[in-house]
């Protein structure tokens, strides 16, 4: 039997209007006192004089969605959160565009700071997502998280 997990992936960049909608949806949750949002933005890094113009993201999607599910479960156990959302881009994301959106909410602010950092760090270490940095001259190199 194959379990299907929630899909965290979105095609292309994550738009600011998508983020706004996500924030607006939480206004009916009046037990929330604090939100904390992390956004990963593609940097136009200069590597040997060649500028990164985009990252082409791919993932081992089934495993990544399973990992995101596990991170979600662990995070809810560790921290007093009301809500948590994770979205990651697949495909081309240009420099300046957003590729990762993590959103945690809680009655209390202390919880969201700890929870958000935990989610972002764990996700970077454990989710099988791969990034091909595309340079202005169309050459590329594979990104490695530091």
């Amino acid at each position, binding site marked *: 039997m194959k379990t299907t997990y929630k899909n965290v992936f979105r095609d292309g960049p994550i738009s600011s209007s998508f983020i706004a909608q996500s924030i607006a949806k939480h206004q009916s949750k009046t037990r929330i006192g604090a939100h904390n949002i992390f956004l*990963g933005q593609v940097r136009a890094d200069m590597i040997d004089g060649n500028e990164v113009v985009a990252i082409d993201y791919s993932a081992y999607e089934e*495993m990544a969605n399973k990992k995101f599910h596990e991170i979600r479960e662990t995070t809810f156990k560790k921290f007093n959160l009301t809500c948590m959302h994770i979205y990651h881009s697949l495909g081309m994301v240009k420099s300046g565009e957003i590729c990762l959106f993590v959103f945690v909410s809680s009655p209390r602010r202390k919880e969201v700071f700890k929870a958000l950092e935990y989610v972002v760090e764990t996700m970077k270490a454990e989710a099988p997502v791969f990034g091909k940095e595309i340079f202005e001259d169309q050459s590329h190199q594979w990104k490695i998280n530091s």
Partner: protein
Amino acid sequence: MLVEIKYFGMLAEITGCSSEQLNVSIKKIGEIKELVLDKYPDLRNKDFRMAQNHELVSDATMITGQEIAILPPFAGG
């Protein structure tokens, strides 16, 4: 036993394929690794980890027949 092997990112670039089926009579993940390295010698100087059934596994893990993946360094976010 027929096992499906998936390759990702820079490793798929080296192997030239993202997925293949191998008919093997071996028992451990480490043996799959050797088989793959023999087939694609350019993988030898690459950093990778292996997963079976969507979980990271070590060389000593027994092959179950479920999907195996060869994973380059993660770069999400």
